[in-house]
């Protein structure tokens, strides 16, 4: 059962709490810019064979993906927060379905993560990237898909974990490999054979590929394949999250 009013209320709650939390917004944007400026400049001298643009430009879509990855996954902490501060009980005794409880949080988290990513997209001029703005609607759609997958994943993990420390530890274990194995910081053309399966099963790979295709026109997979994989993953992850909420709350 889907209760629209309840989902909207839970969405509002996430977004309102976030927009009041200015340090979080700033630190998140600054982190991405540091990657772009420092990491990007440092590696600008390096040349990947077959890559005829400068490295910072190549890295830019990867940094947007990184921002989506970190912000979305850590949205799961809201569940642990609510459990610790008692608000979870208020939601659990209400007559709404576990699916609605999940969707409210997924929409809230996605709104936040995508807003941050859009903010970083605006900084494209800093590194001299020329974004194809006509593609903005498609970029937005891709961001929403990527973020909803990751928020659902974060929430699923959070529903099994009681403590902040536990959540942070497990998240680092998941986020780091997802980031490094996504083609965010190096081209996939020359990766060793053993790495291929790991990269191919990582949904982030397809997300970064879409953003890179739409922003600077460099692609590894076809756009259709990227979107199909992401849509399938989004459906799968929300279903999984909904089951986790049913089992654990």
């Amino acid at each position, binding site marked *: 059962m889907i*209760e629209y*009013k*309840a989902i*909207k*209320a*839970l969405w*509002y*709650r996430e977004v*309102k*709490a976030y927009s*009041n939390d200015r340090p979080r917004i700033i630190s998140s944007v600054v982190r991405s810019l540091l990657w772009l400026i420092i990491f990007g400049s440092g590696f600008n001298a390096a040349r990947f064979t077959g890559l005829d643009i400068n490295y910072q430009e190549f890295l830019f879509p990867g940094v947007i993906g990184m921002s989506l990855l970190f912000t979305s996954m850590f949205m799961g902490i809201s569940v642990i927060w609510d459990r*610790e*501060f*008692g*608000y979870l*009980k*208020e*939601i*659990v*005794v*209400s*007559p*709404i379905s576990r699916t609605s409880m999940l969707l409210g949080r997924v929409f809230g988290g996605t709104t936040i993560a995508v807003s941050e990513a859009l903010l970083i997209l605006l900084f494209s001029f800093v590194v001299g990237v020329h974004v194809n703005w006509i593609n903005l609607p498609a970029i937005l759609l891709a961001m929403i898909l990527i973020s909803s997958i990751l928020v659902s994943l974060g929430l699923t993990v959070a529903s099994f974990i009681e403590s902040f420390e536990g959540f942070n530890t497990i998240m680092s274990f998941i986020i780091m490999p997802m980031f490094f194995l996504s083609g965010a910081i190096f081209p996939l053309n020359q990766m060793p054979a053993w790495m291929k399966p790991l990269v191919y099963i990582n949904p982030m790979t397809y997300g970064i590929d879409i953003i890179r295709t739409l922003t600077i026109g460099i692609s590894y997979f076809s756009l259709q394949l990227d979107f199909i994989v992401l849509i399938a993953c989004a459906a799968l992850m929300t279903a999984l999250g909904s089951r986790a909420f049913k089992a654990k709350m």
Partner: protein
Amino acid sequence: MNAIETLGLTKNFNGLTAVDRLGIQVKDREVFGLLGPNGAGKTTTLSMLCTILKPTSGTAKVNGFDLLKNPNEVRKSIGIVFQDPSLDNRLTGMENLLIHAALYGMDDKKVLERAKELAKLVDLEDRMKDLVKTYSGGMRRRLEIARGLMHTPKILFLDEPTLGLDPQTRSKVWEYIEGVRKNEDITVILTTHYMEEAESLCDRVAIIDYGKIVALDSPHELTKKIGNEIVTITLDDKTRANEFRSLNFVAGINVSDDVKLSVHDGTNAIPKIMKFAIENKIEIKSIDIKKVTLNEVFMHYVGREIREENEKDNTKQMMKYRLRASGRL
């Protein structure tokens, strides 16, 4: 119709029976108290009745709906004020109420009006636009009571509604609960381990220990069952104290500096004692009456032993509560 009927309601935690085949009937529109020492099973009972915990065996009907077969109808029928704080401190008082209304699918047109009405009931009208973070402990409790009432539930559960509040705030919260019962068509079930709370608020009280009911009646009847009230008099001439033995309603006399008369009904006994004293020219300097309180009743049923383990748990919980209330956690 009864608001709540439990049928052999039982909950085991790893072989420990927290609630043991509980059978209670709570009447429509009454204020019913669950009284018991820490760890007696009060909160566990409440958690089962509001669908947070699944009973190990047995079931209950809440507002006519079966707990196991129809949990969602049960959820719609009840409002809850939890023992631990459960507000969103990052939102305003009003937002907390509005989100609650949305979770219960309330009609948008009625929501604002209802929120204002309840804010007035708990005296928070001026603070509704402030973040809950800035509220005092007592204000938070009141907001929680208002929130629990938002969707006009048929039954309101209050789990230790005044735990951790200072005496003034506590009596204020009692006033609001009295106000709720006057203004709303509602049954109230509260747990407490404060005797005065049960005595001043409840129509009927169940004393529960080790998950079982050990006594159930109105506070008045419970104290009457335990027995006597004490009328204390001081006499000009103590040697005449024994003359009061001739009064047939005096069950016992204890003479020390003053004279203590055990009677069954002190209020009626005082005029008779005075009359007797005047007729027999015994001069009474002062007279005092002490009622047997629920405190004595409680001690009678539950015993005087201190429950060390539970006491420790409680202290921990209280510390947590205070830290949260002060915003440090």
